[in-house]
């Protein structure tokens, strides 16, 4: 069983949703980024999304755009992101890590070599934001050979006619983008998300993670009542610049703890 499948099975057994935390590789610098990543599991992250920095992240809002540019300015690259993951894996062999980014750096790295190197570094899956099902045949076979799940995105614009196209070939989990818009801007509306999750459950057995627009412990708890996992990214990345750079990891982990507590208590609260 893959690390991702194993983790979602454990979560189901525990009867709770997971917390997926997104951080940007190399942000704000190599050392702090490593400290941020390494401390996520202890702070309560169940799954980690590690952002690959890209100069033109057109599906991301201001917080993640700024994080990518900070990382690039500090010398980060696709290669250094894999190096950061490799170091993480020296200490943690159980927490699933999904690499999330845009296609151009992967294409330039070489799709086949990237999948091979990512798997060797300890990645479990890939999310490539600008590679929809119509175009991902150029990456999918290599991901499969390397044993990486290729996570597909569903959005409020993914209707029932389109959903099967998204699900065909999806693996790991289904990532539901809960708002129309870029990361970290609008807030997800709980009722609409519940309805969408219920709709997806009818057509797929994949775990459903919900992201975009979840900013606070309360917001995370609301999503965690129905979804299999909730994803928080922009709010965490924003913590990096909320104080001295040397203390960035402490701030990020502080928010992860609060989010994890809320997510773990979410269903208990409902039954109480």
């Amino acid at each position: 069983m893959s690390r991702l499948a194993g983790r979602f099975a454990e979560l189901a057994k525990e009867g709770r949703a997971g917390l997926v935390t997104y951080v940007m590789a190399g942000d704000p610098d190599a050392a702090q980024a490593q400290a941020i990543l390494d401390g996520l599991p202890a702070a309560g992250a169940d799954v980690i999304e590690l952002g690959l920095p890209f100069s033109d992240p057109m599906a991301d809002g201001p917080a993640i755009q700024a994080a990518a540019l900070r990382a690039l300015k500090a010398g980060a690259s696709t290669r250094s992101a894999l190096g950061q993951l490799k170091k993480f894996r020296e200490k943690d062999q159980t927490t699933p890590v999904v690499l999330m980014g845009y296609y151009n750096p992967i294409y330039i790295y070489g799709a086949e070599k990237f999948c091979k190197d990512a798997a060797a570094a300890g990645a479990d899956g890939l999310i490539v934001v600008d590679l929809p099902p119509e175009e991902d045949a150029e990456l999918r076979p290599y991901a499969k050979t390397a044993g990486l799940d290729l996570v597909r995105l569903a959005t409020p614009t993914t209707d029932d006619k389109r959903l099967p196209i998204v699900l065909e070939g999806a693996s790991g989990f289904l990532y539901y983008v809960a708002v129309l818009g870029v990361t970290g801007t609008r807030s997800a509306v709980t009722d609409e998300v519940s309805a969408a999750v219920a709709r997806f459950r009818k057509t797929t057995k994949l775990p459903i993670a919900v992201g975009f627009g979840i900013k606070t412990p309360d917001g995370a708890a609301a999503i965690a009542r129905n979804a299999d996992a909730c994803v928080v990214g922009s709010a965490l990345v924003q913590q990096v610049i909320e104080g001295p750079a040397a203390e960035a990891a402490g701030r990020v982990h502080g928010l992860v703890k609060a989010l994890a507590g809320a997510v773990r208590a979410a269903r208990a609260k409902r039954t109480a």
Partner: protein
Amino acid sequence: MTQLNSYRSGPDERGHFGIFGGRYVSETLMPLILEVERAYTAARKDPSFQKELDYYLAHYVGRPSPLWLAERLTKALGGAKIYLKRDELNHTGAHKINSCMGQILLAQRMGKKRIIAETGAGQHGVATATVCALFGLSCTVYMGATDIARQAPNVFRMKLLGAEVKPVTSGTGTLKDAMNEALRDWVANVENTYYIIGTVAGPHPYPMMVRDFQSVIGRETREQIMGFEGRLPDKLIACIGGGSNAMGLFHPFLDDKDVAMDAVEAAGLGLDTGKHAASLQGGRPGVLHGNRTYLLMNEDGQIDEAHSISAGLDYPGIGPEHSWLHEIKRVNYVAATDDDAIEAFKLLSRTEGILPALEPAHALAHVARIAPKLPKDYLIVMNLCGRGDKDIFTIGERLGVKL
């Protein structure tokens, strides 16, 4: 290489020109891109759509634009006979409105009430703001903060036309960042918004659709040159940033194998300086803004900033069909520097009484380079795709004249 029956049959049903093009967009946009494609496919087959477009092109834009035999320029260069396709005489002063008119008619067929656009030099922004004013639709134009500073007259023009101009400070504050921001807006407002892309780039169907709308340039040229000369030209020349004016001139001639085509990229300070906007000559294939095409980037696939005196050519990519035409060698891609463009600007102003925009001044620089060595019966048609009024401040600065 496989022998093609036609160079004009692309793209395939998935929007690919060879390995280029495609639909590399986020899932949120995918259904909308497919909707635009369906709507355009239907409009393309609908004679009433074409009739409506023709009406506005004739009576509002002022088409057909003249084909002008530039006799004094020809004499000054002393070689090939040079014709200028005068698309700078269109309403709003550039070829951009050809595609804006087509797209806004499509947006209305689709029931969209709000229009967004990106702009570099401001010509596409002005053309978009113009058609929005004409049809009473709300208009938001994204423009890099750097470009806003160097194209003040066009910014003011857009505002006078009722558009909201949103400065983009993210990234490098130029055209590529404006396009990122327009895509972000579109993702957030998919239900009511139509994105009028200004060039033959972006996700399918945009490269095909913008090309189709701009092809009116080449179709008219064909008819006009037959009228003057009774034969097709020997060579077509146009500048390229994204490449819409070049695609519009070239496409109707692609299957005429005796018609050569040169497209001129902006070499900025020089191709060997790294400060240029020549994606084909200085870049390599990658994926950005919805399509695979030649891009300027570093070894990690991070997009580089482009450099050109002309804001309209200052883009690190190029339309995917150009990438394909480059690889199959149907079109010859060359370059002209900032300095070359300034010299050409001065040349045309004094020989023909026409101030060209800095974009086609690059094409003219190439004309001036090759024409003297060619025989007098060699026919060149150059697309004069924009007028230079917007550039007088840039030129003044370059020439040390304070306006």
